[in-house]
């Protein structure tokens, strides 16, 4: 069995585990979101483009938020694992056909994201045990047991994620690489097509999240306008693009949401 170990892998495992904390446990500032996690993973392994590309795909598809006690798959784990595996496999096996490899890594990354989500449920069960253990001491009036309980909970989470990432990066790369290179060419072609179609899922997810009658009309209108603009000019300045869309959205919102209400 192939076994990879390097400072990059250790660094990636620790970084991934620390980023995971922001996902739900500390702050929730969105620093752990896939576009950022993917970029950081890409930077660690020296290929920024792949990290950002994978991160942006994952971001679109798994944009749905955690509501209530539901524990969703970890989108940052998906982006982080997929980027690291893809870059590691491409170096280890000196592979050049990148799109199918990216898609293959995304499939493994998705599985690992679901695993991290499931493992969060185990952590929360462990937190119940931690609460019961420290409760008698907390009820005596000291704050230290509360701090100890919090510390133990976060240590368990970081340790678990670091070990998970380390195992999947160190052992998973070799196994995944062998599976990938044993796939028939037609499957690889299929994976390439899937990578190209994947953003459609994300666009549809956001469409469903934001859907309103006024929004649907605006969506269609701006799609047609910008499709024609891009067809005619091929390239649009990003700043102009954003300002143009913001003005269109602002006018629509003013006329159909705020002005309508006040009148």
């Amino acid at each position, binding site marked *: 069995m192939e076994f990879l170990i390097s400072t990059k892998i250790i660094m990636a495992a620790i970084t991934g585990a620390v980023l995971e904390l922001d996902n739900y446990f500390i702050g929730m500032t969105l620093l752990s979101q896939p576009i950022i996690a993917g970029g950081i993973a890409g930077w660690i392994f020296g290929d920024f483009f792949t990290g950002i590309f994978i991160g942006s795909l994952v971001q679109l598809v798994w944009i749905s938020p955690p509501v209530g006690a539901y524990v969703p798959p970890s989108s940052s784990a998906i982006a982080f694992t997929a980027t690291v595996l893809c870059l590691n496999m491409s170096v280890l096996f000196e592979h050049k056909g990148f799109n199918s490899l990216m898609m293959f890594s995304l499939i493994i990354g998705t599985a690992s994201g679901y695993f991290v989500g499931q493992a969060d449920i185990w952590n929360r069960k462990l937190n119940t045990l931690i609460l019961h253990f420290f409760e008698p001491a907390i009820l005596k009036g000291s704050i230290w047991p509360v701090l100890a309980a919090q510390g133990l909970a976060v240590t368990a989470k970081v340790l678990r994620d670091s070990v998970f990432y380390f195992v999947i990066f160190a052992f998973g790369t070799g196994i995944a690489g062998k599976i990938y290179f044993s796939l028939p060419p037609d499957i690889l072609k299929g994976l390439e097509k899937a990578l190209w179609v994947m953003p459609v899922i994300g666009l549809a997810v956001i469409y469903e999240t*934001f859907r309103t009658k006024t929004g649907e009309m605006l969506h269609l209108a701006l799609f047609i306008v910008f499709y024609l603009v891009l067809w005619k000019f091929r390239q649009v300045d990003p700043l102009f693009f954003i300002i143009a869309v913001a003005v269109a959205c602002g006018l629509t919102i003013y006329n159909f949401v705020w002005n309508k209400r006040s009148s």
Partner: protein
Amino acid sequence: MDEKTVKKPIGPFDLIWSGFKLNFLHLAWNFERLQNLGFLLSIDNLLRKIYAGKPEERLAAARRHIGFFNTHIFFSPALLGVMARLEEDLPDDPPKAKELEIESTKMGLMGPLAAIGDSLFWSGLKPFSMLMGVGIIWLTKFTLNGWIWAVAVSLIIYNAPRVIIKSYLLFKAYYRYRELFSSIQKVKFQDIMKSLKVAGMGFLGAFTAVYFRGKALTLVGLRWLDTLALCGAFMVVVWGLRSKKPISFIFMTMVAACIVLAYIT
């Protein structure tokens, strides 16, 4: 009694420190009492000031706040402020009445605040800010500069309201807790949500055009056929989402369909 003229045992820095600790509200989240440990940790320094020289009363307060607690993390400062104020204002005798009042207020506030927070942040600001981030990354063709802009824009869109709302609620809830809910009611959350959704749909329409006009067309090989195929795939995914199919199921089905297509073509 005029709320302004009464000298409080709790100063603005105590409130800020408590509010800061609310960032760790989820740290020991558990299935039994959810965010209770995080809330107890946050309110502890305020309880120490309120019940200085009254250890029995402080212990009773700690017992109250180790119970069930669950609300939206960014709206929790409102509860923190109201709880601190009630602990301070309500007479210690009879203890049962104080406990009942605080417990019922806490239970009554947690749900509505969680509902506002969930819809405003999880269903509104988060997807909107991330959509902006992804859009900028695509428009700038995955460059480092573009990524830095995307990260900055999406973090500011999401975190600026987060910090403003948290600070406002914390101080308002403590210093003017009787006016808190009339102030919240005055905010047109429904209109804000609708505006966010409309703006999100607008940006989505434009970004969809960027993606559809992308040059890496490999599905069938002909641009117009590829565009049609993408439109078809989009509609199928929308149908799948409306039929409550899980995203992982849609994702794997799409991968399988692309592999089948590769064998056929």
